[in-house]
């Protein structure tokens, strides 16, 4: 029998992943408002595609990274914020960039 958070099996309770949403209790009406994509969102989407073209990233790797986001954050982040998080995780995992470099560049850009 399906319990909300997981399944009961011989192995005990199996917890569902943060991304595994089918059948979760939710009475929220579907919000049909569509937001115009911001420039940074378009470019995050594009950078994923370019990395994919170069064999430096796969959809499956990206999904795996997004699924590692803790539940509360996953539910609160927007779709492209998760993609931006995944982009950073993948480029650092692949050692294309380091977190420190990104921190430094970010503070250069923001002008701190």
């Amino acid at each position: 029998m399906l319990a909300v958070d997981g399944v009961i099996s011989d192995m005990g309770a199996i917890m569902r992943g943060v991304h595994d949403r089918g059948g979760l209790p939710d009475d929220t009406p579907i919000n049909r408002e569509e937001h115009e994509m911001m420039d940074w969102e378009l470019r995050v989407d594009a950078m994923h595609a370019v990395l994919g073209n170069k064999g430096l990233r796969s959809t499956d790797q990206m999904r795996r990274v997004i699924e590692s986001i803790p539940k509360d954050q996953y539910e609160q982040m927007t779709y492209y914020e998760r993609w931006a998080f995944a982009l950073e995780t993948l480029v650092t995992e692949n050692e294309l960039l380091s977190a420190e470099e990104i921190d430094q560049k970010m503070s250069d850009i923001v002008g701190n």
Partner: protein
Amino acid sequence: MSNDQHPNHGHHETETEVQASYYASRSKAIETLLVEKGVMTTTEIDREVNAMDSKSPADGAKIVALAWSDDLFRTKLLANASEALKEIGYELPDKTPYLKVVANSDDIHYVVVCTLCSCYPRMLLGRPPDWYKSLAYRSRVVVSPREVMEEFGLRLSDDVEVRVLDSTADMRYMVIPRRPLGTEGFDQDSLAALVTRDSMIGVSDPLSADCL
């Protein structure tokens, strides 16, 4: 996210806006570094932005209009979407994910979701709408498809069989909605004008003939 305009002096950024601007700066930093290090070029990024922007529901609508008026094409499309589309000049990438087309009828109504993320036939229709990617849609449509469709204005009779398609793997699904009544003799452009993006997902029906 609020779209309200505030006068600058009274404006305090919401938490949502602060978070978005964090990610905006962060991703700008990543882009700058990736380009500086020669991992990619700005041109390559721009090209992908344009490639994604070039796809929209308009092509899907044309394909539906053709399927409505040409039974042989419709049969081919349902049997092997890539092959059928190649014959009319749409070259889909010859790699996963693959497009599969299903058809609504008086007896059967399909509605598509990706409960695990946001899988959608982007290769043809472009980006999915925000609601398709929402947590609410992903949780609710599998368990209460009829309630969800009612929110989109579609009430199906109880004797129609609703089939929810959860695209979890290498296939991407597009729905051919039912052809509206009173459209006999409509030309392709007029038929295509009735085909909404939402009807190709299956949450609602196409526009009715008297909408034109």
